[in-house]
């Protein structure tokens, strides 16, 4: 199997799947970024809408795949052409999928207007005062394991410093050849461990965010939605801890390949297996749990005649949350699985900028 096919399988297919099936993974109180009464979710009209969305994004995915294969067969073997082509095709794909989403978002708004859902029903909000007294995430102490692995990596690196070759690979191309080297120094051999520390801290942050994110309880069925929400948070917390630990181990493995000779095949296979496992895990979790735990079955079903508070006006285009009055920094995404930030809170924006700047800055700074 060549590297292009691997890329296709590992990156594109999970992207296609999560794009096409997002409407099925959201909360039942939301449809294409518009808040709806829960029972409307299973109406034939909305079922039809979701089906058409799958068809359209499916066609987009097929077209992207065909373009991808055509380019490969016609033969852009040059590294730069591949990179440029990939950038263009991925941007185009993202742009088109957003256009498709917007079309359905607009259709959904029209439907909502037509049925006057929010006007005829009492909109309420439920808050459990004991919500944060229970265990919402697994302990951050689990990350101690990752920190210890990192510490071990650093110790090993200095123990065997003399064995490390004078040049360390920094970048690989699509054929698995090294394209960028860094001269060996105490600074450059520490790139991997520093990235490890950065990633562990990032994962700790995500775990904290999962616990802190806004409490979102469905007004129609508070007990059920509360139970689902707790399980949703715990599962993603477990996923984050597991992924974080596996990622740390993988970085340690890469670092060890600088010191000890390792089978070249293993160097490709291990990161590949890791990425496949991580994406399959995330998709499986999205399918079984759903956004906010909406796909989980619980014993409780007590249907009230109320709907959630209509907060559509704070969701720009149905995906960007901007609410000046809301002090929360993190809350569940509208369209998709996971969390997003309140764009009206400068602190949320600052935190995100720092995360991105560090991710870009650390390798750049230490690589020279």
């Amino acid at each position, binding site marked *: 199997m060549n590297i292009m096919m691997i890329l296709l399988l590992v990156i594109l297919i999970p992207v296609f799947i999560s794009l096409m099936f997002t409407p099925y993974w959201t909360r039942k109180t939301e449809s294409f970024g518009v808040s709806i009464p829960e029972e409307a979710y299973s109406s034939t009209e909305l079922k039809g809408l979701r089906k058409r969305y799958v068809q359209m994004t499916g066609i987009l995915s097929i077209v992207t795949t065909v373009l991808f294969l055509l380019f490969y067969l016609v033969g852009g073997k040059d590294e730069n052409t591949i990179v440029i082509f990939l950038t263009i095709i991925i941007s185009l794909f993202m742009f088109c999928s957003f256009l498709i989403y917007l079309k359905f978002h607009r259709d959904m708004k029209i439907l909502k207007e037509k049925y006057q859902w929010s006007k005829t029903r009492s909109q*309420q909000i439920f*808050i*459990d005062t004991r919500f*944060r007294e229970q265990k919402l995430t697994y302990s951050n102490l689990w990350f101690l394991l990752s920190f210890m692995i990192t510490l071990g990596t650093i110790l090993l690196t200095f123990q065997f410093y003399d064995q490390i070759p004078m040049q360390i690979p920094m970048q690989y191309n699509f054929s698995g050849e090294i394209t960028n080297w860094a001269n060996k120094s105490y600074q450059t051999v520490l790139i991997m461990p520093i990235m490890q520390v950065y990633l562990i801290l990032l994962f700790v942050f995500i775990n904290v965010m999962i616990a802190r994110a806004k409490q979102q309880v469905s007004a129609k069925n508070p007990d059920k939605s509360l139970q689902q929400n707790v399980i949703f948070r715990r599962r993603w917390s477990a996923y984050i801890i597991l992924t974080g630990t596996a990622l740390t181990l993988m970085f340690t493995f890469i670092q060890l390949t600088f010191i000890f000779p390792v089978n070249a095949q293993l160097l490709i296979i291990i990161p590949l297996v890791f990425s496949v496992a991580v994406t399959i895990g995330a998709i499986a979790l999205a399918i079984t749990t759903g956004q906010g735990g909406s796909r989980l079955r619980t014993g409780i079903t007590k249907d009230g005649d109320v709907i959630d*508070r209509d907060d559509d006006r704070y969701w720009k285009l149905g995906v960007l949350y901007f609410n000046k*009055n809301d002090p*929360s*920094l993190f809350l569940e995404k509208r369209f998709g699985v996971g969390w997003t930030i309140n764009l009206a809170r400068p602190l949320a924006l600052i935190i995100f900028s720092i995360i991105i700047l560090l991710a870009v800055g650390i390798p750049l700074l230490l690589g020279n």
Partner: protein
Amino acid sequence: MIDVYINLNFESKEPIYTQLIHQIIAGIAKEEILPGERLPSVRSLAADIGINLHTVNKAYQQLKQDGFILIHRQRGVVVNPEGIPKADETYMESLKNTLHPLVAESICRGMEEKDFLQFCTEVFAEFKKGKEKEK
């Protein structure tokens, strides 16, 4: 652990902070929220509801003034562990004042006294039922 809900209605004419006060007092009356129990902090409650900090703060300050809760700097917001202050003369006076316009309006609308009292009995029963459910 049972869930204690605060239920707010955003289309209601009643301001959110008074709804919040009433919901918390109702929770205490039903013994769903117990003396000494911790309530969410101002920030955390405001974030979960999605409203301004001042709104929650206003409600908490009012509850504190009336002796329902204590606000500690370290321990956060706690339901008064010594129980809620018993009805005294000042309270009776304010209760009377609150009832006054309600009775006046029902008279204007031609309601019988016994129907009004019947409502009161029903509301009391609601809280008793709430208490039994807890046990």
